[in-house]
């Protein structure tokens, strides 16, 4: 019989306000095996853990039940606490009376009753717990970074500098990401490509870094320390070894009408192209949907003009398979589509643009050569209106519930740059709140107002009304003056919300990494493990985890790199001890379990057994602990019940069922 201690956490009032914690603790004492029960305000705190420690020592506990928040939150905390007091950490079970009880029920009696039942199920489980010891697995000392923007670049550089090989997989033909599309950066106003290009060069030249551009992750299998990844290298139609990057093919290409992705569709590009001049690698790709040769079979001009003979129309997609110990996701973001926000007339007027489009217009390498002009008629605007929070902070399904975080600052930047370069242009910003938490951020915004005379109006815009003469009438509110404003403008710039790259869902699925309702990857702990995914061996870098600006992205990229390095530096990893185990006396050797094992962890051996005095050689299932991940698929396939899962045994789950149905 176990000697069980039950610890009921108040979680401040999170639990105690809805669950009668005293009563839960008292009820625990009536359960079989329970020799100790107490409640405390914060069980996870140092003091709370001390209580556990003391009880284990004093009452010689052999098992613990902690009634608290989700085991996904603090199971490890309490297991470690138990271990410190000399108890096997797998003798701890959590009754989730917060997320599954106090937070979803209102009636105290009802919630308390349920908490007691959940506690009973946990006690029933602990009664059948057995001490478990983790095994070991090896670590492949190579990292994969998915995404080649500034986040991916920084992470890759840091890992490579620590001496580990890194592969970057980038979907587009060049690394660089969103940052390469920006003109200047806040709050220092230095030129984006001036600071990014050297880093791109560094990545390209680094002996430990290998870049797969125009490539996508095709499949991921394995687990922490030992992932196997298939990477699809899309047919570039250009031999990367032969190409010298001279650019003649792009000049001569007769198909030049494809909207340029890099310029947000504001300009065009050729069918054979590099996205931008500083692309890394500086090797073009042929867009087969736009290429005349691929569409009609005729043309082939690029091949004729290429002195290096690098054009290869017969190239096909290639699948590269590689092993990695750690994977960093750095898939970045895009702007939301504005089709649900047509009160701003984005689809009705060419002069209503997004901020990222403005970046391209302001950029010397952009579609207007850096001249600020209206896209409808090429005229210089005299009045520009910026609208903030377009699709951010929305409670309805038109937009995003979160603050996109970067808009306030880049709008101040845009306003300042415009006022600086074109002092005769008036700039008005409609805002709800100006959010500038960051070093030198508020000073930056104040400069826009005080030194550059940018007109900030607190209030949203209701409608942008295109006028017959091409002007735009902006109807907005000025909440401080309590007025409705009708402002004539030549150009309207929308601070559209940012959202995670739509591909991230697919990637997260392959990685079995959690993702939230907004498609941001979930961190293992919001405060304490912000760059790790709950899935071991997966790390998060940049906006894929949540909105952030460049300095924050670079910091997080470094942090993700450190976490990955920490993993790669280990020679062995402790494995999950909740693995399957076969009872030799019951095993039929039928191979059914091996059929369903996703990890190939089950093999068969001829072994001698002593079955109640009968000695014979039998074909028996053997589980490789290092490979077994503990899913339990085999246990259900096994008709005799020989195969069982440690930590989630048949009898334990049945005991929980019984406790709940009691």
């Amino acid at each position, binding site marked *: 019989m176990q000697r069980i201690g039950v610890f009921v956490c108040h979680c401040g009032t999170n639990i105690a306000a809805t669950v009668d914690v005293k009563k839960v603790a008292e009820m625990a004492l009536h359960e079989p095996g329970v020799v100790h029960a107490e409640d405390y305000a914060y069980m996870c705190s140092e003091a709370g853990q001390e209580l556990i420690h003391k009880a284990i020592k004093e009452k010689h506990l052999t098992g613990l039940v902690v009634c608290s928040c989700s085991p996904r939150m603090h199971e490890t905390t309490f297991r470690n606490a138990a271990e410190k007091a000399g108890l096997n950490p797998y003798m701890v079970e959590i009754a989730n009376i917060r997320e599954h009880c106090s937070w979803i029920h209102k009636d105290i009696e009802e919630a308390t009753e349920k908490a007691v039942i959940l506690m009973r199920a946990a006690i029933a489980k602990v009664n059948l717990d057995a001490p478990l010891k983790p095994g070991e697995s090896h670590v492949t000392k190579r990292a994969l970074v998915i995404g080649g923007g500034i986040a991916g670049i920084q992470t890759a550089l840091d890992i490579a500098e620590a001496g580990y090989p890194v592969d970057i997989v980038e979907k587009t033909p060049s690394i660089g990401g969103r940052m390469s599309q920006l003109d200047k950066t806040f709050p220092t106003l230095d030129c984006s490509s001036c600071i990014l290009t050297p880093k791109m060069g560094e990545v390209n030249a680094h002996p430990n870094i290998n870049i797969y551009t125009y490539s996508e992750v095709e499949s991921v299998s394995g687990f922490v320390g030992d992932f196997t990844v298939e990477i699809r290298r899309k047919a570039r139609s250009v031999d990367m070894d032969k190409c010298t990057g001279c650019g003649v093919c792009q000049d001569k290409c007769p198909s030049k009408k494809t909207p340029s992705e890099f310029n947000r569709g504001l300009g065009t590009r050729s069918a054979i192209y590099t996205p931008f001049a500083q692309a890394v690698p500086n090797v073009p790709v042929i867009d087969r949907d736009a290429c005349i040769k691929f569409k009609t079979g005729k043309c082939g001009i690029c091949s004729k003009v290429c002195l290096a003979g690098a054009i290869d129309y017969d190239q096909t997609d290639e699948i590269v398979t590689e092993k990695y110990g750690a994977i960093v996701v750095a898939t970045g973001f895009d702007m939301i589509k504005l089709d649900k926000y047509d009160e701003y007339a984005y689809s009705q007027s060419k002069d209503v643009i997004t901020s990222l489009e403005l970046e391209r217009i302001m950029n010397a390498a952009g579609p207007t050569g850096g001249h600020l002009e209206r896209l409808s008629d090429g005229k210089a605007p005299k009045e520009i209106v910026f609208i903030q929070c377009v699709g951010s902070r929305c409670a309805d399904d038109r937009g995003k519930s979160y603050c996109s975080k970067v808009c306030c600052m880049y709008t101040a930047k845009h306003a300042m740059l415009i006022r600086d370069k074109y002092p005769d242009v008036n700039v008005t910003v409609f805002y709800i709140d100006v959010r500038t938490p960051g070093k030198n951020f508020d000073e930056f915004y104040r400069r826009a107002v005080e030194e550059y005379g940018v007109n900030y109006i607190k209030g949203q815009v209701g409608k942008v009304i295109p006028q017959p003469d091409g002007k735009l009438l902006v109807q907005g509110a000025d909440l401080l003056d309590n007025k409705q404003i009708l402002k004539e403008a030549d150009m309207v710039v929308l601070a559209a919300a940012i959202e995670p790259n739509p591909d991230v869902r697919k990637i997260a699925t392959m990685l079995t990494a959690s993702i939230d309702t907004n498609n941001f990857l979930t961190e293992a702990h919001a405060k304490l493990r912000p760059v790790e995914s709950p899935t071991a061996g997966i790390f998060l870098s940049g906006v894929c985890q949540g909105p952030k600006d460049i300095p924050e992205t670079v910091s997080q990229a470094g942090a993700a790199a450190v976490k990955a390095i920490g993993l790669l530096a280990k020679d062995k990893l402790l494995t999950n001890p909740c693995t399957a185990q076969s*009872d030799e*006396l*019951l095993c*039929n*050797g039928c*191979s059914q379990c091996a059929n369903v094992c996703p990890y190939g962890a089950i093999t068969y051996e001829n072994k001698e057994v002593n079955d109640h005095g009968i000695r014979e050689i039998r074909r028996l299932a053997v589980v490789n602990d290092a490979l077994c991940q503990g899913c339990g698929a085999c246990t259900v396939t096994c*008709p*005799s019940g*020989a195969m069982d899962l440690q930590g989630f045994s048949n009898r334990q789950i*049945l005991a929980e069922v019984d406790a709940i149905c009691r």
Partner: protein
Amino acid sequence: MQEFVEATSQAGDSSHLATARQRESQTRVINRAKELLADGTVARVLGWKAGDLPYNPEPAYFEKEEDFADFVYNGFCGANLSKYMIEASKLEGKTLVCLKPCDTYSFQELMKEHRVDRDKAYIIGVGCKGKLDIEKIKAMGIKGIKSISGAEIEDGAETLTIDTIYGEKTCSYADAMLERCHVCKGKDHVIFDETIGESKETNDGDRFTEVEKIEAMSPEEKFAFFQKELSKCIRCNACRNVCPACSCRKCVFDSNKFDSEQKANVDSFEEKMFHIIRAFHVAGRCTDCGECSRVCPQGIRLHLFNRKFIKDINELYGEYQAGADLEPRTPLTDYNVEDAEPGIVAERG
């Protein structure tokens, strides 16, 4: 020729109605078995020996020439011998086993599960013209049976002649056949070393007709139907013991792995639980050999459970016959990304 005469005379002693012509197949099996025993190819023979009544032969090993006096192979040899090969595989030397076409599916399924050793078996595929159900004959009011003729394998006769203490009676062979033979999988053996005797096509029904009938019932009717069937269960475990798929060293219902060890059922739930779980455990592995229903002393139509699973598997995951090949995956250890969702059960109504 000497052997032939001898065999005939032996048989003639046990049944005055039989003729040498009609016994040809049984004799050939015996002769071949003796031959293989003699030359050391096999160490023993697994077949059927005559019982105390004319209709209850039982599985038996034959190791010496004189043992064959009791060897029979006739219409009452329904027992599927493949499961005996699990134990026989552990014995020294090869075992000659007589398998009917349907038994070979079971043998192959057991091979797939590494439960029998192909190298330890010498399979004689014996011909079959459908096996008989004594209960059906009795149900026709034929009692006090002394002997039966027409049940021999080579007999082309469509009728059985039964000598009873009340005089001679007759009935059609087809009417006396086991249910499973009306829905026979086919007359070909899927695995064998040699075959002896001809088989006959006996399939004249659809094996899912009964299942469909039950499916069409209301929940209340279904419940009542199975309540009635299963309340007869005495948990004698005959179904489990005979089933070639139920080959666990120790059944879950006898071990403490699920806290499910029970000897007798106390109320209706347990019969259901036992039979559902048993059917679930053999789902995708059951060849539909029908032995469970044949041996049930209470006459419970246990194959209705297995056939329900087979029907669902066929409908949802594609036609499947357990034991038809040696592909390692069964429907329950395989999947398709496009598989139906469990909600289909409610949708089908």
